[in-house]
């Protein structure tokens, strides 16, 4: 076995000591930490950049939308007022009580043996519904062989006629008195009665009879 003598062991020892130099190792560690910090800083900067972009985008959108929103609010208020006004007008126009069909019905059912001498009629809005409550008072004279029967038939005819169109129909005699006057019908003198009838109804549609 050949004898091997390391003449450089001192130099190698110094080299090893230098590579294990704590200051050098420490500086390398610090450099590593700094590099990590710098990398993390750029990562965070990117993240914050994304958020900032989103913020800037929203700011720009808001700057554009805010005046439009203010204008839209004014416009909406005006349109809502117009809409409300139109609806109120429509409600008033369409919610009126129409007298023409009532008068038509009266014309149709007054027989020739009955003469209406006075009629007063009024309609008022009902508090609990969009309909109107109406009252018509008739005063008149009825004649015929049995004038009371004629008056009664007229009262019933009023009730039946109006019940076909309206709700809550009631027809009641307020008075029914024999009269001393007689009338001549087809050359025949017939007795008369004077009557007063009150007809109450409302303009809600009639409910069909069951």
């Amino acid at each position, binding site marked *: 076995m050949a004898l091997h003598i390391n003449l450089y062991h001192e130099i190698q020892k110094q080299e090893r000591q230098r590579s294990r130099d704590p*200051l050098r190792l420490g500086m390398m560690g610090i450099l590593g930490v700094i590099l990590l910090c710098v990398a993390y800083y750029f990562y*965070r900067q990117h993240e914050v950049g994304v958020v900032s972009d989103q913020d800037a985008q929203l700011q720009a959108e808001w700057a554009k939308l*805010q005046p439009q929103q203010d204008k839209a*609010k004014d416009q909406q208020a005006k349109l809502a007022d117009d809409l409300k*006004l139109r609806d109120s*007008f429509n409600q008033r126009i369409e919610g009126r009580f129409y007298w023409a069909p009532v008068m038509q019905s009266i014309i149709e059912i007054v027989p020739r043996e009955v*003469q209406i001498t006075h009629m007063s009629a009024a309609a008022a809005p009902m508090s609990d519904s969009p309909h109107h409550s109406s009252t018509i008072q008739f005063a008149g004279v009825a004649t015929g062989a049995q004038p009371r029967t004629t008056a009664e038939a007229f009262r019933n005819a009023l009730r039946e006629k109006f019940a076909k169109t309206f709700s809550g129909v009631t027809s009641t005699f307020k008075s029914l008195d024999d009269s001393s006057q007689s009338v001549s019908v087809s050359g025949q003198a017939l007795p008369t009665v004077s009557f007063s009838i009150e007809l109450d109804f409302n303009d809600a549609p009639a409910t069909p009879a069951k």
Partner: protein
Amino acid sequence: MKLQKDDIQKIVLAGIILAIVLYVYSSMMLGSLDSHEAGANHDIADLQPKVLAAKKQLAATRGLEQDAPKVSERLYEIKSLIPDGAPIAWFPPQMKDFLNRQGIEKSSIKLNGESAVPDLPGYKVLNWTIDLPQVDFVSLGIAVSALENQFPLTNVASMQVDAGADNPGAQHAVLSINTIVNQ
């Protein structure tokens, strides 16, 4: 390996430098980023609902604007039914003309009173009495029907009809009517 005093000093110095660098890094660099991010997040949280509300507002207004022409047209139609000027000056002649066209020549129209209409700001209701001393019931019915059709802002509140004493064919009628006019 044994550390020399000189080495220990260098290590301590390096540690101090590292601590200072880390402090500056975290407080100034990262801290600045964090505060910037927190500010941006706060702005976003603040703006997002506002932007959403604004978009909803614009959509709602656009929805209403689609109906606006119809609403305006209807309101124009209704408003054009009310002549300009004092109602006492235009309503009685207007009614007299109307009644004449219906074949009712004798009439007198009087203003009875007025009332406010809460649901129609800028308008009021006037109550008139129309006295028709000679009218037959059928003509009256036709006239009332025409009135209800031709004057949508007018409604008959009540009526009274009395048979004529000497002429049963000619009744005396009194109508109480309401009409909507400008305030």
